[in-house]
């Protein structure tokens, strides 16, 4: 079996980021995360799967630094770079500025750093990567849902972050668009060699995309089990209809069901 491309090495070596015993409780008493340990390795595609309210989005926000953990630590590999960590974040909604064109939306990270002078070629490259070069001067409202999400992905990639965090980015899209964006995302991941942490509530989406699936229990969220999807890339529609895919989906579904039951027992 052909090994995965160089851009997606197997999950080994020291993690790019690690959550150690991370817990998060909110002021209203809700415990969103409880004792979460998670290693994210360079170049891997890992999915967090769980029922809604299991804290998977919270975990992602803690990694991004948008939310502070109530306990535990977030450890980063020392990459010798100064300044804030380069992270790309894709929200569930496209989260575009409606008053700015597609190009201006993608340019935002540079604008906020005061580095617009050198940004133009990178903005153009990012738009080209997601196939939106012809829509640089369009406004978000003129785009379809899928194109808005592509813009959002282009913006996340334009700073060339090592780590791409995605919070149910395709949940609101129709199936046809979602499948296409799944394929495009895999293409980008393979060609760019990013590390991706992908939150989803869809077992099928997680199996299709990831090398490793982390199944979480309902509130308070913790890791129930991990599943390695040892299928080769590139994955395409043939994989989506294969028995191998169906087998992994069954495994992941069963794991998720057990996680729900175990969560219910403790609740």
């Amino acid at each position, binding site marked *: 079996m052909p090994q995965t491309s160089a851009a997606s090495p197997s999950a080994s070596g020291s993690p790019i980021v690690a959550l150690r015993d991370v817990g998060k409780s909110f002021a209203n008493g809700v415990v969103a995360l409880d004792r979460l340990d998670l290693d994210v390795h360079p170049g891997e595609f890992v999915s967090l799967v769980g029922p809604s309210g299991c804290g998977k989005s919270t975990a992602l926000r803690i990694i991004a630094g948008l939310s502070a953990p109530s306990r535990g630590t977030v450890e980063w590999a020392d990459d010798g770079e100064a300044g804030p960590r380069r992270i790309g974040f894709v*929200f569930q*909604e496209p989260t575009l*500025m409606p*008053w700015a064109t597609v190009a201006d939306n993608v340019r*935002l990270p540079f604008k*906020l750093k005061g580095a617009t002078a050198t940004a133009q070629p990178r903005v153009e490259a990012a738009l080209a990567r997601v196939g939106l070069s012809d829509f640089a001067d369009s*406004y978000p*409202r003129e785009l379809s849902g899928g194109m808005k999400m592509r813009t959002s992905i282009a913006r996340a990639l334009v700073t060339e972050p090592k780590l791409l965090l995605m919070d149910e980015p395709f949940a609101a899209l129709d199936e046809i668009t979602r499948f296409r964006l799944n394929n495009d995302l895999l293409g980008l991941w393979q060609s760019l060699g990013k590390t991706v942490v992908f939150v989803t509530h869809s077992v099928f989406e997680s199996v299709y995309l990831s090398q490793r699936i982390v199944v979480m229990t309902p509130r308070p969220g913790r890791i129930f089990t991990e599943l390695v999807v040892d299928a080769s890339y590139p994955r395409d529609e043939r994989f989506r209809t294969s028995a191998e895919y169906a087998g992994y989906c069954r495994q992941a579904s069963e794991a998720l069901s057990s996680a729900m039951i175990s969560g219910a027992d403790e609740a």
Partner: protein
Amino acid sequence: MSAPPPRIDEAPARIERPLDRPLRVLLPIAVLALGLILWEGVVRLYGIPPYVLPSPGLVLSTLVSDWGVLLSSLVVTLVTTLEGFALAVIGGVGLAVLFNQSRLIEYSLYPYAVILQVTPIVAIAPLLLIYLPQQLAVLACAWIVAFFPVLANTTLGLNSVDHNLSDLFRLYGATRGQVLWELKLKAALPYILAGLKIAGGLSLIGAVVAEIAAGSAGSGSGLAYRIMESAYRLNIPRMFAALFLLSVSGIVIFFTLSFLSHLLLRRWHESAVAREV
């Protein structure tokens, strides 16, 4: 026979038909013409004297013959209105930004902004005329009436920023100034413009109210003062002419601000985007 059931394909929403555009312009004009003809007819038929009800023709000829007096009064009122409006925009947006940046300032001052708004301006105007020079008092009235809608709308706009966009700005290390300028004020723009549309009309009202209050004290030079003065002198045609000019001013202010709003929002905001059905 019972009426046929409504057909589902008849959309309940209003749909632009090809004739809509000309009809929208022509129908109000037709109503105006009809009203004027009726008015002129009634005045002639019953021989109503002009100090009771002048005919439209007489109002028009008064407008022309008294143009010198009326124009200088119009300029006075319009200058007051525009100054009041400008101050209301600066004060309203400025105060809203200040409130947005500092909760303590908001808590301290907001109640007084509300009090200023809910106390009827007609009751405040005579007091202001005692303490301030007349020009300044009139301007203060225009400002008081107009600034609150700008403040309230801007506050609403600044607070209705998409949370994810705020997170995104935080993620990319945006400064406080950048969040305010690049995110909050831009997200608030449609709200601010809606506030301006209300404030434009209100500053005219504030100016007129103050002029009337000043006029009853026997001084002034604005259009509202002309109306008072003409009333005392039973110069009813001039009253109508001045009223007509006030009304036209209000309309011009409203459409100017609507047009400005359209220009600024047409590319991106749903309220200003023409939709094809």
